């Protein structure tokens, strides 16, 4: 019985691991193929099934005029938008989360929990609902197709995540530490900056990672609110997909685009195994 269970367990884990890895492996091998080995029947193993070459990777650094795919600029745009929006969301979200965790608010029937719910519930908002007014608004103030417009929109996407994680986190940081700081003569801002924040670094890192993940992987808003001036990475890759870009350069650019966040998986796992996530995500 227990042997069978162990067998099934490992079988399932290995099966899922293969499923997870399959598209990456496929993309990796495809990125080294040439015309013949893509279009002349399916090939798998380099050197055995086909002769690998670096053409798919070389076009990544070529200029578009010479037939390159030009993902360098979208790459930096994506990085810039994601990091800026995440930073703003984390700062504002952390301040609000601290207030919601430490002080009591009451305005009529609206209490702390309702305000927290208001923040988090913004995730329910279907992007399409916002995209139409944003499209018309940004075009009326000439911010359509600009980095600033995108950052503004991304703050709406990311701040709920920051508030969600940080409220839970602050609830676990003992109140005594702020009280001690206040008794020692700090004003509330000093207490927050010098005592509470340094004790909340794991929470901040988790919130930051989630903001970066959800900012980096967004496609919808970038797709609707930008055209040619500013292109983010996902939009660029999808544009490559619908043009006649060959599979090898498509695969290479896709791999380059998803690579940076895979490092985040290692960081998340570290915090998970240390038990820091259990309080932060709930």
């Amino acid at each position, binding site marked *: 019985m227990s042997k069978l269970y162990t067998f099934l367990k490992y079988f399932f884990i290995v099966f899922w691991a293969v499923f997870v890895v399959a598209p990456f492996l496929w993309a990796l091998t495809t990125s080294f193929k040439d015309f013949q080995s893509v279009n002349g029947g399916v090939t798998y193993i380099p050197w055995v099934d086909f002769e690998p070459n670096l053409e798919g990777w070389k076009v990544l650094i070529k200029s578009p005029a010479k037939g390159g795919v030009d993902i360098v600029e979208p790459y930096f745009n994506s990085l810039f938008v994601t990091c800026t929006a995440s930073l703003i969301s984390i700062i504002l979200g952390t301040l609000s989360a601290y*207030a919601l965790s430490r002080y009591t*608010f009451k305005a009529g029937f609206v209490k702390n929990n309702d305000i927290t719910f208001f923040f988090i519930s913004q995730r329910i908002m279907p992007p399409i*609902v916002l995209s139409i007014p944003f499209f*018309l608004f940004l075009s009326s103030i000439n911010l359509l197709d600009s980095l600033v417009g995108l950052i503004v929109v991304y*703050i709406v996407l990311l*701040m709920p995540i920051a508030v969600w994680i940080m409220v839970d986190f602050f609830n676990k940081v003992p109140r005594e530490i702020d009280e001690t700081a206040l008794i020692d003569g700090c004003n509330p801002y000093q207490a927050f900056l010098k005592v509470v924040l340094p004790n909340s670094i794991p929470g901040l890192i988790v919130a930051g990672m989630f903001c970066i993940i959800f900012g980096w992987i967004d496609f919808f808003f970038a797709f609707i609110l930008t055209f040619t001036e500013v292109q983010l990475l996902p939009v660029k890759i*999808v544009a490559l997909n619908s043009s006649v870009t060959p599979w090898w350069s498509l695969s290479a650019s896709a791999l380059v685009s998803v690579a940076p966040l895979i490092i985040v998986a290692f960081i998340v*796992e570290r915090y998970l195994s240390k038990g820091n996530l259990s*309080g932060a995500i709930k």
Partner: protein
Amino acid sequence: MNFKHKYFFLFPGLFVLIGILIFPIIFVVRLSLSGWNSYNPGLDFIGIENYIRLFTDDPRFWESFFRLSFLSVTTVILQYVIGFALAHMVWKDIKFKRFFRVLFLVPMMTTPVIMTVIWRTFFHESLGPVNDILSNFGLSPKWLTDPALAKFTVIIVEVWQWTPFMFLLLLAGLLSLPKEPFLAAAIDGASPVRKFIYVTFPLMAPISIGAIIIRLIEASKIMDTVYVLTSGGPGTSTETSSFYIFIKGLREFQMGYAASMSFTYLIIMIISLTIIAKVLTKLLLKE
């Protein structure tokens, strides 16, 4: 004493969020009462004509909504079952525990649309590896162009992409469980199956509810994957609400009508998610 300080902490975030959101929402409502389209761009007032059209004369919207419900509920159930199984398996010591934990998290870190581009080549009818392997058995399913199979393909891709998120939430939950109930069960000599049914699962109920609701919210936005994988096709067989609104609003520029659809859609989402949350809480927390 801290009367003023607390507002300094709360208000910047709150006001930025409200400031960015309030006008779009009011604008959507106002826009939905206008006949804004590409011939006639402007905020005229046509009353609730758009809503009448939506409720009486647009089966395509409702079909896309039921399709969305089907897709999101199916994918979330699959993600929950698989995610829970995986989390439970790597919870206790197994070989290469941390390797598997990292590996199982990886898909959620990758951009859905970019991976979908890869999936498209993966499921390609003649040049993709799936059909190459299946052709040995004489099969060549049309993953992207058969109406029923295309839905299935969307589900596979969604499950691949988002099971890790469920896995993460549930594993974090499992790791935070208290040890005492498990010790008690071990002393009573409970079998692993009974231990799971009577101890682990009830203890995980609150976390499960949270995780399912979060995933349902995110799944109800399915659009990127569909756009890249099938563009709603073949026909309208994988078209979801968001995608239909997108076609009406930003492809055909029937802004007024699209606004009335998106407002209706928002209201339905809020109501149905609230009901689902209530029902799940009742079901899973009945003890």
